[in-house]
């Protein structure tokens, strides 16, 4: 731990990290506490500790709805924020995020084919919930992997990383067009369930799915931190990174692989959740006033978790029978923030 402490160039950043850790605990607790059904706080604690409670329905709500949803928010917030940070540095573009490479779109295409396309073949996905559940995940991961495979096969032949970025946007547009065609020809019921998926949903995740998602995200985040030195070198541009001993080709592939797996798995389970990946890294840079990834990665994780927990709390404000789509909330928080950065703060040009 001692060398890690050296990284915090100022006490300010260390205090900020501490503060954010406390607020994660606070918002996590609030997220468990708030909801359409009122459950006393001490009962929630008792349920989580595995003790018996007065009402069986409370136990079900906490353990099978609220707790998985809060954990999903934590995984989502941390994974998407770190992906955005890595993309912004790798592509030296302040507006890069997990979406820009077309990886999320690929996941979307997989899901679109699964939800809407299969009915053409006469396969009904409505009745078999188990099949639907796993099919959704598999098709989403497959979709993002296909885009990833296309990108990786081309990436070493391209000298300029900006070309890769443009290619990602092109792939995304083509996929959106294909999804549009599938939507046009599909039935109302399937169309609705696909649209619901695109709105993003933390609540559909089950404990069983979390057991797979949590280790994948944790490994991805640890690997991200381990490549932070290469990411720092990328700040100077690829030529300088190379002259400082970074194997540019290898680390480029490693960074893109980490990002795709994180984005692909999160998108499969929670749907596309927008703007977290773009906004959080900027927030981390502004608050810490540094470009050092060894600080930015932990800070982005903490900020991302906070923001997603807040978004989830907003989505289920008391008085509302149903929860609001989380993607709309992150967009409503995120877009004004991006505009504010562009207009007010020149920090966005930091990356050039």
């Amino acid at each position, binding site marked *: 731990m001692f060398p890690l402490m050296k990284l915090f160039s100022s006490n300010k950043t260390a205090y900020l990290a501490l503060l954010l850790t406390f607020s994660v605990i606070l918002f996590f607790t609030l997220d468990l506490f708030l909801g359409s059904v009122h459950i006393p706080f001490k009962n929630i604690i008792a349920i989580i500790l595995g003790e018996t409670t007065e009402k069986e329905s409370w136990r079900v709500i906490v353990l099978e709805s609220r707790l998985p949803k809060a954990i999903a928010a934590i995984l989502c917030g941390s994974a998407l924020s770190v992906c955005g940070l890595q993309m912004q540095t790798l592509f030296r573009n302040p507006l890069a995020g997990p979406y820009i490479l077309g990886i999320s779109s690929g996941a979307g295409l997989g899901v679109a084919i699964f939800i809407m396309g299969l009915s053409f073949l006469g396969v009904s996905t409505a009745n078999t919930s188990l099949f639907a559940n796993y099919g959704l995940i598999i098709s989403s991961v497959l979709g993002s992997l296909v885009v990833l495979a296309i990108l990786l096969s081309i990436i070493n032949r391209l000298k300029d990383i900006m070309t890769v970025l443009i290619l990602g946007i092109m792939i995304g547009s083509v996929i959106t067009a294909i999804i549009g065609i599938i939507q046009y020809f599909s039935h109302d019921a399937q169309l609705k369930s696909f649209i619901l998926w695109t709105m993003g949903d933390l609540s559909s995740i089950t404990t069983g799915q979390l057991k797979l998602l949590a280790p994948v995200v944790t490994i991805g985040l640890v690997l991200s931190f381990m490549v932070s*030195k290469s990411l720092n070198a990328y700040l100077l541009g690829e030529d300088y990174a190379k002259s400082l001993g970074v194997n540019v080709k290898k680390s480029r592939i490693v960074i893109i692989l980490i990002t795709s797996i994180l984005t692909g798995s999160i998108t499969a389970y929670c749907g596309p959740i927008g703007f977290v990946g773009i906004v959080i890294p900027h927030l981390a840079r502004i608050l810490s006033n540094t*470009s*050092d990834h060894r600080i930015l990665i932990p800070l982005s994780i903490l900020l991302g978790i906070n923001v997603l927990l807040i978004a989830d709390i907003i989505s289920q404000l008391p008085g509302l029978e149903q929860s609001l789509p989380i993607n709309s909330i992150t967009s409503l928080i995120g877009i004004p923030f991006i505009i504010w950065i562009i207009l007010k703060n020149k920090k966005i040009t930091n990356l050039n």
Partner: protein
Amino acid sequence: MNISSLSIGYDNNPILENINLVSNNGQMIGVFGRNGQGKSTLLKTIAGLLPPIKGQFNYEEIDTLSLSEKERSKLMSLVSTTQTDVGGITVKDFIAFGRFPYTNWLGINKEKDYQEINNAITLCKLEHLSHRNYDELSDGEKQKVNIARAIAQNTPIIILDEPTVHLDLINKVEVFKLLKELVNSLGKTVIISTHQIEYALQICDEIWLINNNKIEPLTPTQIIDNDKLKDIFNEDIISFDKASQSFKLK
């Protein structure tokens, strides 16, 4: 240090073919040539940024072009024309990038690394700037910080591609003097491409002259005495005056 049967260029579209030359280490080498003659391509190739079409660049028996990035980064450092503009980093931390090849996976600097960083700061006389933010500096200051970063990398070879291009007169001369000092006091080999021919002739030990798809190693005296610059620079509008060792407009 020798270059043998080296062909350089992009995608089998050679710019310079079959370069063969031998030079001494520990001197300041200037690379002269008109735009598009291949100065940058040559420097990028020997710095390992661009794969050669064929051939070798050997330094003390080491075939540098077959080294890994990591190994090469301990042998040569680079300062290019590319303007790096990165925010949220102090001058000192920017110079610390030079220690990258030597630090562990997390990039933690040790006592030795701090010594090298401070040494580079002192040599480049950047003490007064070391706690400023890099993106607040002027172009001239940035270039000096970049050179300090290369010095902190502490490599036997330093390659600079037109390092003085954005600088005013005083800054240009300061950079040349600083590089010469590195050669004289630390025995570095400095390879620098430049259009500042008049200063370079005064300060370089050797010139690699690129003209008509050929490259020729010469001493500054040979260049002046044999009117070598006449071939390169169009006589109708400008000429090199031997006596004053400077260009005169016609």
